[in-house]
Every structure is written in C-alpha cells, then in structure tokens.
C-alpha cells in the first residue's frame, strides 16, 4: 500500500509544467504543489466525472500534459469514460487512479468486489495503450519519470492507504484556499485561454 501524500511528493519532482487535476488527492496536493495556478482542484462536482473533465481538457490543450489523480470509486461510477478516452487517444493524458478499496469520505465502506479488481487490466481492455499497476511506493518512484514520458493516454493504478473520514462534511477541516470558480479563472489565465 502507498501513502498518498508520499506519492504526490514524488510526483511533484517530475511534474514539470503539467496541468494537474488532483481529484481526491487535492487535500494533500494543496500543500505540496509549487505552481497552484496550474492545478485544478474542483472538490467533488459530481462523482465519477473527473476523468471526463480531464479528457475534455486534454483534447482542448493538446500541447500540455494533463495529469489526473482519480479514485477507484469515481472510475467505477463511470467505467464507460475509459472507452471514450481510449477512443480519442489523447497523447497528453496521464490518468492516475488511487485505489483505496473503499469509499473513504463516507466512512470506509468497501467498493464492490474491492479486493479483486484489476483496474489496469480494465483500462488495457478499454484500449489504453500503456497501463501500469503499483502497490509499492519505491517501485512507483523508480518508474514514474519514464511513465510520464510515455505517449498517452497512460493509466496508472496505485493501491493507496485509505484515509477514512467519519466527521460530518461541515465539520471537516477545509483545505481549499480558492473557490472552484477562482481555480478555473486562474488556470484559464495560466493557459492563456483568457487574458489576465
């Protein structure tokens, strides 16, 4: 099992100038990223949509690397998104999935068939040309730079420790420093979609 914060710290070393959609990793990534205007932490607009959002962004900005930190619960909710991504073959899309085998934000209930799903195999079957699976941080760290040089779409499944939250949502510590609309405004300016 991989610690999510440790994984993101290693990713930061290789991030370059990529646009990062931190998804369920946003809480940790917000304290690790050194170029927040290239991050798109959106919270949870509607579960299962992050992969499609990142696909749209990758197609709109083909000259930029788009890196998504998705979750297995989100992937399961929109498995069909994988075939759309494979259909469009965005060469700049890096789809990392954090598999903690449960719905951590709702108390840790297991996802269906939690311990027996091979997400990398599912992605391979959907048509991703490059897929990887890791359950060890050192193994991932040793391969990450090369993975980020592969031609997308690339799928990376990672077994991560669940960080289960049982506090009611309104009592949880807020990590956001910007509203979602400010986040979008900032990244649009950063990409030159709108002028500053």
């Amino acid at each position: 099992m991989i610690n999510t914060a440790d994984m993101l710290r290693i990713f930061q070393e290789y991030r370059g100038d990529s646009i990062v959609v931190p998804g369920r990793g946003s809480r940790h990534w917000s304290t690790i990223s050194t170029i927040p205007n290239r991050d798109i932490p959106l919270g949870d607009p509607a579960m299962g949509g992050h992969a499609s959002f990142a696909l749209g962004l990758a197609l709109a900005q083909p000259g930029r690397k788009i890196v998504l930190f998705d979750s297995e619960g989100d992937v399961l909710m929109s498995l069909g998104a994988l075939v759309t991504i494979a259909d469009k073959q965005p060469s700049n899309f890096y789809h990392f999935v954090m598999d903690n085998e449960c719905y951590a934000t709702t108390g840790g209930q297991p996802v269906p068939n939690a311990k027996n799903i091979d997400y990398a195999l599912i992605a391979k079957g959907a048509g991703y040309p490059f897929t990887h699976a890791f359950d060890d941080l050192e193994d991932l760290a040793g391969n990450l730079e090369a993975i980020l040089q592969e031609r997308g779409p690339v799928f990376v499944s990672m077994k991560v420790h669940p960080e289960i939250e049982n506090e009611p949502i309104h009592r949880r510590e807020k990590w956001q420093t910007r509203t979602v609309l400010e986040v979008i405004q900032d990244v649009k300016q950063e990409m030159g979609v709108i002028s500053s």
Partner: protein
Amino acid sequence: MTQQNAQLSPETILAEFNKNDVTHVVTLPDSETNWLYLLMDADPTIAIIPVSREGQAMPTAAGLTVGGKKPVILIQNTGMMESGDSIRGWGLGLNTPVVLVIGYRGWTRHGGNRPSDVANFTEPFLFTLGIKYFLVENDEDSTRISMAFEEAASTNRPVAVLIADEYHGFNR
C-alpha cells in the same frame, strides 16, 4: 394526431453549429440524430466525442470549455434526465457555458402522452435545474439555436435547445 408541416433539417442544425464556431460535439446517439451525426462526422471543423452514458457529457464539455474550446452536448431527453447530477455539478457548479441540444423524444405538440412518457418530464426537469431552453420544431425556428449560444455565453450557464421533430424524418 396533429403534426407540423414544416421540417427541421440536419443541415440547418449543422449550419448553426458552424455559425457559432462549435469545435466539439459530445454525444450519445439517439434515434433521431443519425443523419446529423453523419454530417458532423464529415465536417472537418467539428470533432465528435462519443460517450457511452450521458452523464459523461457535461464534465467532458466542462473540460473542453476550461481549455478554451466551444463544445455542444447532443443527447436525448432520456439521457438528459439520467445525467441530472452531472449537469448540476459540472454544468451549473462550474459555470459551464455550454448548449445542450436535446432530442425531445415523445413531443407531440398537443399532449396526450401516457403519464410515464419522458416528454412529460422534459421541460419540468429543465425548469427544476433553472436551465433556460429554446424549442426548435422546424427550420424557421433555427435562429433560436444561435440565441441559445448567446444566452450560454452571456450567462456562463448551460442552456438547452429542445429538438422537437420526432416525426419528420430528421433521421432520413
């Protein structure tokens, strides 16, 4: 059954897309739009993004919009209802200025549908989400599509166009 005499042609819809500089069409085919699909597929200025569930369409469009492109969503009213939370979160929540072109399955102009027909729920659904919509029944209505694009751009919100031509060979 009362039906319209005028028809809505797929070429008219595509011309509106082109006039409004549409770059991508995020779509799940329905029984009414195959000829339009073929026309779009042959148009080099428009990229089709096929989804397998309508709930994927709005986040895809949101990503395209953040990246500076101008997508439309082309789905049926059944799929619109299936993707309700996605429209709420990724459309309304992110201020996504996108036009949804919705096939108005079951539209009969005079009512008379069975209680469970999807047509009965289409406009109340949009009303509930606070999404403005324009009804397009024939070619003469087509300027309403441009009005929808203008509305989406000026309000930074999703706007719907209801394509109400189920009985006139839109599919050819």
